[in-house]
């Protein structure tokens, strides 16, 4: 799903459109609320050093990265369930 979303965003929107601009186009007030909440009630550092660097990256990048991570995790789990639980048992 995340990879499909990333592909859809990259196809339908300008490829270099920042994530923040994409979210702003969906709900203009969302980021304002989020920014005020984080900077005023948590710490400005979190917004400036974590959120903004993510939000200025291309919009497709975050869902693509999250999708790849999920796909990798799912593949690892699937391999683990198909393989014998432990090879050590047979060796010992």
């Amino acid at each position, binding site marked *: 799903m995340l990879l499909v979303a990333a592909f859809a965003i990259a196809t339908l929107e300008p490829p270099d459109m920042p994530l923040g*601009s994409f979210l*702003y186009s969906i709900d*203009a*007030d969302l980021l304002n609320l989020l920014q005020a909440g984080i900077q*005023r009630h948590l710490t400005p550092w979190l917004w400036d050093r974590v959120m903004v660097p993510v939000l200025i990256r291309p919009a497709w990048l975050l869902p693509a990265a999250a999708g790849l991570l999920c796909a990798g995790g799912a593949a690892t789990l699937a391999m683990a369930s198909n393989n014998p639980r432990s090879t050590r048992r047979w060796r010992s």
Partner: protein
Amino acid sequence: MLIRRRHGWEIAQSRATPEGATPEAAGLGRRALLGAAAASLIAPAALARAAFAATTPALPSFPGPMSAPVNPRFVPGRAITPAKDVYTYNNYYEFGSEKDIWEAAQALPLKPWSIRIDGLVAKKQTIGLEDLLKRVTLEERLYRHRCVEAWALTIPWTGFPLRALLAIAEPLASAKYVVFHTIEDRRAMPGLREVWYPWPYTEGLTIAEAANDVAFIATGLYGKPLTPQNGGPIRLVVPWKYGFKSAKAIVQVTFSEKRPVTFWEAVDGSEYGFWANVNPAVPHPRWSQARERLIGFDEVVPTQIYNGYGEWVASLYTGIKGQQLFR
């Protein structure tokens, strides 16, 4: 026996409204004061300065390089906010949405500074700030400032009536709005990295609002040049509206026939509209506007319609129907 104990934030009545503060008390008629104000627009600067000084009673003004005679027509009716609070409690999204942006704002270079005047004017021009200040008469005004977030300050601004800037700009008859643009300095303003916002910060007034007696251009506060975090070196002050209408660090003034879409109106027009006049009876969608917290004092007071400037500005809106005037 009633013993009246003053709170720490209270000032003596004599200081808030000293003897001679009102034109009548000073032996002046309303016409004389208006005449002096009109003279300040059309006469050479030195003559106007002398006329204003002659009609200004001895209200204490804040000493400093930007010190100017206090305009006695605008009595705030409450104590001036301590300077340290005004200098350190700021809303300025170009530097961040938290309140303590004052240190970050020092990165904004204030010199040299010029203002572009364009749009529907007789002659487009760019004026250096120092040249502009030579063409106007500076005065000090003690204004209440009401933020849309339900906090308030009382500030001694130094500057000149916005009407004087209109006289310099000479807008054409077709101009209906005046639009103010804030500087967009990406090196000094980290908030501009948030590219999704509709930078530069833009605000607007109708020509009638801009020509009103209360509309003011500030270039100083507490007798000193306007600091970067407070909108220096030059900003708009329209105290009957919520604070976000008072654009900071102005670099361009455009006269337009079409109503501009202002910065916060673009972000969320249902909460922060074009008119944004203060009204305690019209709540913000997420909080009440009935009361306001006085920054620097441990006090919450009732909010007044038009922030108490109704006698000057209420008539501007009598014919306007079907618009969200108070948000």
